[in-house]
């Protein structure tokens, strides 16, 4: 089964793949309260169907930890006047976002304040 071995090979090669974009439906985020996070931008994916910004924050224990922030896709961003050039890897950004209901390191934007000091709605 050539296709089978090819698939297995691909899976094995991807076992260490970074950023498997956690496919969270909006229902997985608690939508009533905002969580505040500030961190350094590590990855930017402004794509369909949802955009993702990965930031590294320093948690309560002083350890660096990754947060995945989900935002709307290119159409929504265009509507909000958000362009690729307002944010870059290494920028310090802060966000008001809706955290995952299970409390893990992910949230739904919400509002993101970029290095230019402007807060925009990335919903």
């Amino acid at each position, binding site marked *: 089964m050539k296709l089978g071995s090819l*698939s297995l090979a*691909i*899976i094995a*090669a*991807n*076992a260490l*793949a970074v950023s*498997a*974009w*956690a*496919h*969270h*439906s909006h229902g*997985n985020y608690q939508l009533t309260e905002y969580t505040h996070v500030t961190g350094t931008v590590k990855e930017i994916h*402004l*794509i*369909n*169907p949802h955009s993702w910004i990965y930031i590294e924050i320093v948690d309560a224990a002083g350890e660096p930890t990754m947060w995945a922030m989900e935002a709307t*896709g*290119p*159409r929504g*961003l*265009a509507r909000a006047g958000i362009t690729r050039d307002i944010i870059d890897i290494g920028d310090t950004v802060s966000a008001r976002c809706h955290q995952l209901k299970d409390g893990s390191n992910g949230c739904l934007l919400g509002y993101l304040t970029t290095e230019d000091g402007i807060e925009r709605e990335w919903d």
Partner: protein
Amino acid sequence: MGILEFLETNSLSIWLNESPSIFAYPTLLALHTFGMAFLVGTSTAIALRMLGFVPGMPLAPLGKFFPIMWLGFSISVVSGTLLLILQARNFLAMPAFYIKLLAIAVAVRSMRLLWARVFSDRVSAGTGLVPREAQVLAGAVLISWVVAITAGRVTAYIPSQGLKTAVAVLISTLVLIGGGHIAVRLWRSTKWAQQGGAPTSTH
């Protein structure tokens, strides 16, 4: 990792992934839906005929709808391949994606076998008699579509949610089929009671 990265970063993929145009990613999704509708819809109709839900429908003209089904399949394959390429690394790491492909393979293979054994056979294509084997294949087609649609939808969610959804679909389908079976039995028995007994012919 090189080839998968290329798949995601070539200019077509980038355009589909990043373009705000409604004719890019959203229309690609819509095409996948069109393909599914005609593929699943037409093959379901054919399967229903095999299972005796549409008695008396001649098989030869029904066979003319196979090209419609294969057209839907082609649209789904092309759009599906593009959708896969856009997030190759993600999809290839999901068990649900492989379940979806397997289910589609079972359904497509079953339809091809049905074509070969029932529709292209000149003897049975005219009379409308359907051998038992065809019914098994038809059942496999219907089950496969429910699995494929469920697995496909579930790729948009996290695995634990997907698993619970699969269970919910299984339970719902069983309840629906069971309920339909009971309903048909009740309807038939009341109808026969009015007519003074069950009909003597079996077809």
